[in-house]
């Protein structure tokens, strides 16, 4: 469509209809419908423990936020995730670089990776409980383990996918190999690396909930389970919503970093 025809068709659609089409409005409308259906079922069931009304859940959120309890648990879980990701990335990225570049190293290390990878972080929880006991170390261990594999695999794939011609171009300019790795391979692999980090974030955020649910004295996963034990369902829902929001925010953060640091690799379609 040419610019002229677009503006022409826009002029024909009334202002109100256009406003109603905005993504923000559609979002609100859909969630409002969802809340209405939920409220209807809640009123019909009339069991505030089994299904509290949206209002009750909302009040629980406000209350937990006001008492700061919501934020306490959120920050604890986020802190654990940040720590785990740092550890996982600090090991996985350099290792992935080396494994991607040097086939011999890959041949030696890869089988062990492939043997451990299918054993999800969650499957480690019982053994890890025995080693670490209930506390901070357990979630961090599980999350680090969970984030490690996607980051490693993604880094290796990113390095392998670096255009050979870029390296050749640098070689023909006489650039030494070490410089080529730091100034060509790493920047070229950066988009893939950030995708790997996104996956690592998502995987470890799933793991944190599982780990905290079972074996931690704090954090959002723990809170969900704690309130279930007390049959305070609105609070359970409040924390579940928090888990969702935090998951979305951390993902958006990395996506924002991707756009900022690797503008040339922008993906037109939302992944």
């Amino acid at each position, binding site marked *: 469509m040419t610019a002229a025809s677009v503006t022409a068709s826009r002029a024909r659609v009334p202002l109100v209809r256009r406003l109603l089409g905005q993504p923000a409005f559609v979002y609100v409308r859909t969630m409002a419908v969802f809340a209405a259906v939920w409220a209807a079922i809640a009123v019909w069931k009339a069991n505030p423990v089994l299904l509290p009304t949206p209002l009750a859940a909302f009040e629980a959120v406000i209350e937990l936020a006001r008492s700061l309890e919501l934020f306490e648990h959120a920050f604890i879980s986020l802190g654990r995730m940040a720590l785990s990701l740092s550890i996982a990335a600090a090991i996985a990225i350099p290792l992935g670089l080396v494994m991607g570049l040097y086939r011999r190293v890959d041949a030696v290390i890869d089988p062990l990776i492939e043997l451990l990878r299918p054993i999800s972080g969650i499957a480690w929880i019982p053994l890890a409980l025995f080693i670490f006991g209930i506390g901070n170390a357990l979630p961090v261990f599980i999350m680090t383990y969970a984030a490690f594999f996607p980051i490693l695999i993604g880094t290796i794939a990113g390095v392998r996918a670096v*255009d050979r011609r*870029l390296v*050749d*171009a*640098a*070689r*023909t*300019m*006489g650039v030494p190999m070490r410089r080529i790795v730091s100034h060509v391979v790493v920047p*070229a692999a950066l988009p893939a690396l950030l995708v790997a980090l996104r996956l690592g974030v998502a995987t470890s955020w799933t793991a944190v909930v599982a780990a905290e649910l079972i074996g931690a004295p704090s954090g959002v996963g723990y809170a969900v389970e704690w309130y279930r034990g007390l049959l305070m369902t609105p609070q359970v829902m409040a924390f579940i919503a928090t888990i969702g929001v935090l998951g979305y925010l951390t993902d958006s953060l990395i996506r924002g970093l991707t756009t900022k640091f690797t503008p040339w690799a922008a993906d037109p379609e939302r992944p």
Partner: protein
Amino acid sequence: MTATDIPRATSPHESPSAGLPVRLRLEAVSKRFALPDGKETIALADFSLDIRQGEFLVIVGPSGCGKTTVLNLLAGLQMPSSGGVTLDDRAIEGPGPERGVVFQDYALFPWHTVWGNVEFGLRHGPAGRGLDATGRKERVRQAIDLVGLAGSDMKFPHQLSGGMRQRVALARLMANEPAVLLMDEPLAALDAQTRIILQDELLRIWGQDRPAAQRRTVVFITHAIDEAVFLADRIAVMTTHPGRLKAVIDVPLPRPRGDATRAHPQFQALSQHIWSLIRDEAYRATVT
């Protein structure tokens, strides 16, 4: 071993490259590759070619005839299986800035601006040795101006058109002040009109109105015959399976060349002659 024993163009003339010293030499070069199933393929067989100072030599041939292999050998990105590749009589042992390369898909660094790309070889390679920041800045400025991209310094490759990207690739090359320019089908990815413009630009940047002793030596690969005749001093025609030198044709069309050159009667005659040399192979490539 010069190419005197290989058929030449019919009209009597002085070869444009006669008398110039030889810079690059491929001598009885063969290149074999191992295939994944264990067999071997021969990309080049007993290939010999001299490239002289300041000449614009174009290699033409059907797809898969090994032209890119020749370029890779001259660039030092690959080593011959047998035979020798030399620059100024010294064996070529690897890539280097004195033999700059322009690749077909430009190979620009997407995370660098135009300026960053052009500066790259000076910053990180031997061509920049002895240059301080100011000296580097000047060289980069000159290279960007030379290719006609002044004003686009801060743009990123993904913001540029194909023609502009090719200019950046050239500027990046020229900043290192190479003695030899190796170009692998650099205009193939461009549309026909842009291609004609850039052919003119290429000759200008190369310095077609300067004497041969002061020009850079160019080895240019293409499969487009009209492009070859327009640009070249000499054309090396290759055959395929395995890659061999079929003929070396002189192109005595006057310089400087431009739109009028394409209408020159000798232009047509040369193009026809070269086409007749490779037509059969090109046909066979479409049915096998």
